[in-house]
């Protein structure tokens, strides 16, 4: 792929922000609809209706937050909303939570996502962090227990696998494990419990292709992200005696596809330079794999997105030069980043300690220090 830039002026592009956002909205609603249909069929109408209810309450909360903001700052509400698109954040956030979440948790997280994730930075286009990721982080840190018992849909593949330490004892052990969820094909189709919108790789891929065709998202980011995860986990898998299913499992689960298509591609929070975006996607992939394998958290996609958002200004600086002349230089920087990142991540996964052991030792340590 080319590392060249798009020559300015980019302002007179054939598509406008409004057009991009509208296509994105359609794409997200398609993912939601596919997911909701699955819930109706597999779990019953109460689940399907609840998902719709969650979506509506999140959108309302997001829009109301922005309306209040406009009122306080005395701005024109209609104009502001039309250029701020709070519903996109709300839909993405709803798609990343489980259907068993309580309304209160989702609404509070949406408000915090919109307010602290977007508005205080100056509104649309000025935010550092992906607002939906901020909202999801709030859910993960404060509201994991805030679920409604009637709608529990079962353990997700990532959490079960994470409990085993992210490595299966043998190929057949993995087969028994994955057959409980319907096999790898089922993971591809998305017919298993998980977050509302993250499960169906097939639907997300189709929507992703549509969005690339409509020039809504840059194809490089998701391709590099998924590709880097694949290569890294392939190497790690081979080093630990896992089969070819290991990297496939990594890219099919845990919202990696969803994050790749809908969250990492947010043009506000990723670098503008094309080699910058490539490094951004690679970094996110390395963080995802590292957090999944080495840490206590069951899922790494969310925090890898937020961490790379922090590094975006630094990446911009790295590629901030005469755009036309430094193509070779940029290629060198990208390759070096890839190799260094790969070595670090693969190296660190070799030193993974049993996390239960660490928990006991550190607590004993704190007991002494008290």
């Amino acid at each position, binding site marked *: 792929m080319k590392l060249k830039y798009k020559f300015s002026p980019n302002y007179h592009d054939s598509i406008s922000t409004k057009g991009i956002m509208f296509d994105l909205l359609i794409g997200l609603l398609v993912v939601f609809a596919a997911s909701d249909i699955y819930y109706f069929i597999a779990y019953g109408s109460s689940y399907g209706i609840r998902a719709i209810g969650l979506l509506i309450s999140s959108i309302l909360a997001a829009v109301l937050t922005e309306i209040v903001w406009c009122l306080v700052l005395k701005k024109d509400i209609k104009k502001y909303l039309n250029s701020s698109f709070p519903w996109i954040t709300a839909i993405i956030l709803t798609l990343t939570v489980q259907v068993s979440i309580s309304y209160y948790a989702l609404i*509070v997280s949406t408000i915090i996502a919109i307010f602290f994730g977007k508005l*205080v930075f100056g509104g649309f286009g000025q935010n550092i962090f992906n607002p939906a990721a901020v909202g999801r982080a709030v859910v993960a*840190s404060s509201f994991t227990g805030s679920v409604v018992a009637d709608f529990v849909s079962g353990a997700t593949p990532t959490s079960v696998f994470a409990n085993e330490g992210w490595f299966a004892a043998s190929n057949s052990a993995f087969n028994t494990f994955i057959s409980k969820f319907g096999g790898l094909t089922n993971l591809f189709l998305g017919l298993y419990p998980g977050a509302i919108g993250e499960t169906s790789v097939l639907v997300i891929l189709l929507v992703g292709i549509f969005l690339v065709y409509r020039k809504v998202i840059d194809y490089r980011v998701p391709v590099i992200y998924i590709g880097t995860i694949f290569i890294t986990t392939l190497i790690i898998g081979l080093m630990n005696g896992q089969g070819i299913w290991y990297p496939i499992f990594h890219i099919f689960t845990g919202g990696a596809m969803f994050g790749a298509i809908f969250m990492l591609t947010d043009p506000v929070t990723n670098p503008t330079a094309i080699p910058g975006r490539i490094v951004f996607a690679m970094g996110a992939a390395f963080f995802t794999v590292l957090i999944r394998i080495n840490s206590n958290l069951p899922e790494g996609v969310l925090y890898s997105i937020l961490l790379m958002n922090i590094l975006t200004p630094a990446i911009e600086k790295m590629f901030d030069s005469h755009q036309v002349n430094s193509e070779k230089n940029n290629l060198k920087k990208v390759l070096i980043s890839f190799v260094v990142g790969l070595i670090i991540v693969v190296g660190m996964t070799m030193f993974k300690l049993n996390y239960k052991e660490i928990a006991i030792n550190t607590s004993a340590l704190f007991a002494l220090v008290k």
Partner: protein
Amino acid sequence: MDRWKNFKSGFLDENPVFGLYLGICSTLAITTTLNSALGMGVSVIAVLIASNVIISALRKIIPDEIRIPVYIVIIASLVTIVEMLIHAYSPSLYSALGSFINLIVVNCIIMGRAEAFASKNSIIDSALDGLGMGLGYTLSLVTMSLIRQIIGTGSIGLSNPFTDDVIFNFQIIPTGYEISLFKGNVGAFLTFAILAASLTAYKNSKKEAKKK
């Protein structure tokens, strides 16, 4: 200098925490409960007044070249004494504040006021300045801890540090609806940002009003 104006400035205009951004480290860590916030605030007031008075009393004989080391000796001794007293008479407060009592030594408010005010003014003025700044600091801590405790745990309570008797304790937000984010470090930063921004907005609006 107008004593009253100076005393007042420690509360809002030159609020040490949200206006001058001094002593933030302990603010973020201590303000999880009202008890710790008050305990820390009172300790800081005590140290501030005592150090201001002593430094002001000795200001004519402290040689200029070594004034900073001398200030440090005085402040560090005062903080050590306060720490020992807290440990002996209020063990619950001691375990709540932990190592942040010792960090009062490097709390920039104390050194800052010693250098900027106490070394140049009379004892009474310095004492009042210490009280004003200390009260402003305590007010900021109490405000933050009220917000964080109510949103983060849903309840608000106060207990006597010397005897551990509960003075009052009631639940405002029902359990299950609190946002535990605010109990932790993230919530501390968010609350701090909101309060600092509000203070700046207030000061700006006052400036606008004055211009008109």
